[in-house]
């Protein structure tokens, strides 16, 4: 079968798609920020060495890591309002779902980075007279940050892709806007190919940038170490 591609119809509704891109960027950015806070909190709880702190954090993390993101979206939108007694709009529900699930993954990234630093580093810093938080801030975290960066970036790219699930809550992200354009133009092939292309190019550029940063960081660490 021969098909006549026609991107003109999509171009005509570029404003709608653009507002979708902005919608996607908005929830991605907010969810990364909130997710980092949740992740740092969970990682601190797990590393605290106190059972009553580490256990809830462990099971929270495990639960979010072992259930589908889509369930989190529906749960945040339809079930959570019943628990809280307030209704949530699609934006709030999407941000809650995205930031809690990415928080669970970030927690593992942060925890993994900290425990990957050899015990000698802690002992050395203590021997120099540093106290607990100072050791973490001045000795451990600077070293761990470099190791956390690649998995952190990878997780954030996953989050950006997961934002497309917010369309199921009728939040006007890129996919939702594409569905609207499609229902006007009846051009699913062009519309969905275009938004796949937008995601592809964005993520490819971001991952190239991330690799560049990683490369420079590693080189900087090696030169400073002599």
């Amino acid at each position: 079968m021969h098909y006549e591609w026609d991107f003109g119809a999509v171009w005509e509704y570029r404003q709608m798609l653009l507002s979708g891109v902005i919608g996607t960027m908005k929830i991605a950015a907010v969810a990364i920020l909130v997710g980092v806070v949740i992740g740092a909190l969970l990682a601190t709880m797990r590393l605290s060495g106190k059972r009553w702190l580490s256990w809830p954090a462990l099971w929270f993390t495990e639960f979010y890591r072992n259930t589908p993101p889509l369930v989190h979206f529906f749960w945040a939108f339809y079930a959570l309002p019943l628990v809280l007694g307030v209704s949530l709009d699609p934006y709030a529900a999407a941000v809650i779902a995205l930031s809690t699930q990415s928080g669970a993954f970030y927690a593992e990234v942060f925890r993994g980075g900290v425990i990957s630093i050899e015990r000698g580093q802690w002992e050395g810093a203590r021997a120099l007279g540093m106290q607990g938080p100072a050791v973490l801030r001045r000795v451990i975290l600077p070293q761990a940050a470099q190791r956390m960066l690649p998995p952190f970036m990878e997780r954030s790219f996953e989050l950006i892709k997961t934002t497309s699930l917010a369309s199921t809550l009728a939040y006007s992200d890129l996919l939702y806007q594409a569905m609207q354009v499609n229902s006007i133009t009846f051009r699913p092939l062009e519309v969905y190919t275009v938004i796949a292309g937008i995601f592809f190019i964005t993520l490819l550029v971001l991952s190239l940038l991330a690799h560049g940063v990683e490369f420079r960081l590693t080189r900087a660490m090696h030169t400073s170490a002599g």
Partner: protein
Amino acid sequence: MTFVWDFSAVLQNYQVLLKGVAMTAFLWAIAFPASMLIGFVIALGTGSRNKLLSAPGRVYVEVFRNTPVMIQLIWFFYAFPILTGHQLTPLVAALAGLILNASAYCSEIFRGGMKSVPTGQWEGARALGMSHSQALRRIIVPQVFSRMLPAFTNRGIELAKNTSIASVIAVQELMYQGRALSSAFYRPLEILTAVAVIYFVVIYPGSYAASRLEKRFALRA
């Protein structure tokens, strides 16, 4: 506000949820082996020195890894039929999307695994008079298999979670059944919580096994 929990809607309709679990399991059981197989073939391409083989493989991997699974499923259901003139059933579209996505990730696991074998192993096999495919089959694959096991288990878990997206194109798996029940009985809190718990119970053992395997291989290395 005091909310009164009422799980009767869940308990009365457990068979509907069970049917959903069966469909979820079916999607996974077809898609996972198929993804491994296709992933292996693609890894032979991306891992080869021949640019004509490796370039298309790289494009395939990057396209499927850098676009959302949700868009891939929707694309196969709504856009692909226009290109071919053939309407796919929701099930076939879901399987196509899931398999193509997971196979891109699987091929990277294979490629990484094969690259991790020291070249001395290849040279040794060659010195013993083995051909490329013999060396691959008898020397390389057995060594990398155990190293790739945790990564594949993780991929299996990701795939299990991704099957829920098939509900968006009306494949009647667990997520779909859960949503249908919750809108029929107006009990979203109980039903969606039950769905989440079912997913957790099904997926967590795999995840636990993966972390155990990772620890075991980390100790050996």
